């Protein structure tokens, strides 16, 4: 019996809203989600920072979120991510050393 079958031998009684709604099936949906999350974080963390006048903190946080959105957009458009670039650069060395 495979794991999936073992988890649900009948196949009908499973009540899992996340499956049924069918959101988040592809990473492209994730990009939208990430942009929304970035906005939410910038509001939730940024407003108190602005109130306390911690502009430097706000700037660093916004930069981080901006980078995140750029990278997510890159993913959406199919550009290689920085880790993939790193991998392309270093993997040959690693493969030469390790089995």
């Amino acid at each position: 019996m495979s794991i999936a079958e073992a988890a649900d031998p009948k196949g009908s009684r499973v009540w899992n809203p996340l499956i049924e709604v069918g959101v988040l099936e592809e990473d492209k949906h994730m990009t939208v989600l990430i942009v929304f999350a970035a906005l939410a974080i910038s509001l939730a963390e940024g407003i108190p920072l602005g109130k306390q006048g911690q502009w430097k903190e706000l700037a660093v946080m916004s930069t981080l979120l901006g980078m995140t959105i750029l990278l997510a957009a890159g993913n959406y458009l199919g550009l290689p991510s920085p880790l993939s670039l790193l991998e392309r650069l270093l993997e040959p060395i690693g493969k030469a050393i390790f089995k």
Partner: protein
Amino acid sequence: MPEKGIINTKQFVWMLFIIITTLAAMQIPSMLIMQAGRDAWLSVVSAWFLDVMLALVYAYMGIRFPGENFVQYSITILGKYLGRMVGILFPLFFLLVCSLMLQGLSQVVNTIFLPMTPFNVILVSSFLVSAFIGRKGLEVIARMTEVLGPLFFFSIVTVCCLVLPAVHMERLKPQLDEGIAPFLIGTPLMLTSFGVCIIMAMYIPLCNRPENGFLAKFSAVSMGALVVGLVTALSVGIFGIEDAQYMNSPGLQLAKMINFSNYLERVEMVWLLILVGSGIVASSSLLWAFGQGLAQIVGLKTYQPLIYPGALLSLVFCIGSFPSSLNQTNFFHYTFPIVAAFVETGLELFLFATALVLNKRGAA
């Protein structure tokens, strides 16, 4: 300093132990077995030795620059601009490790627990929880590891003891039949994942007894090496190298062997839950280290607003770079050791040498 909390030596040990072991216990054993065959456990031992040597350097630097972590003393040693450029590599490295760790854990959860749930749901929720914990600060993470760490350690040791009767010693023989090359090459593979405990340099200034840094690291690495060594040796002894090297997680397979008189057959789920819990806490301390390091480089008063953005960035790394579990394993196997060796050993030794040559010391 952005972080106001203070930890004690016991917490220091458990935090390091959890970070080392969750990263190493899941995926490393099979890679190591693939690399070094029956001698894999020797790689663990030699990596343990080298890592303790490395810890000496970190502990010494922690005392030479009292109250400073490596992000700060790289600025002290190399000056404002170069120091910052070098210093930012450490937080970024932690972020990378966090991505790897949560990706790996989420994959296991997806295969074992929730095969029908979309992978991203699991990934996002694990990031959310670890960011929540990380934002609460070092003291909270330390206290959580104090509860989870012993649980984790004893659960692994119990699993190992219970499967001990199934070991066939002849599968571990002969040792060193291909010379010492395989286990020597396996050593850096192991060392790089033990080496994540360079995070100790972030904790030393916040420990109530900074001089205990080496002791803490030594105990943590020894426990970690014991656990990983046991898992590696036992998987070879039980499954044989041919099977063990292609297993996704030999530790999990070991736990699967346990059943109580054919009645309770899936005890490994409980073990896995503890492992995943520890992994999430470990990645929250990695996120914390990222936030804290970045805040120190830029000179911020608080690091907490950076935790959620950091987690989001790490999540984007995961999604963009590891579309399948194979990518993550490959990255972990071939690319990560190079990066880790560069950051953990190269950078720190470079800083160490520069500090000696330029005769820089921290303000006492």
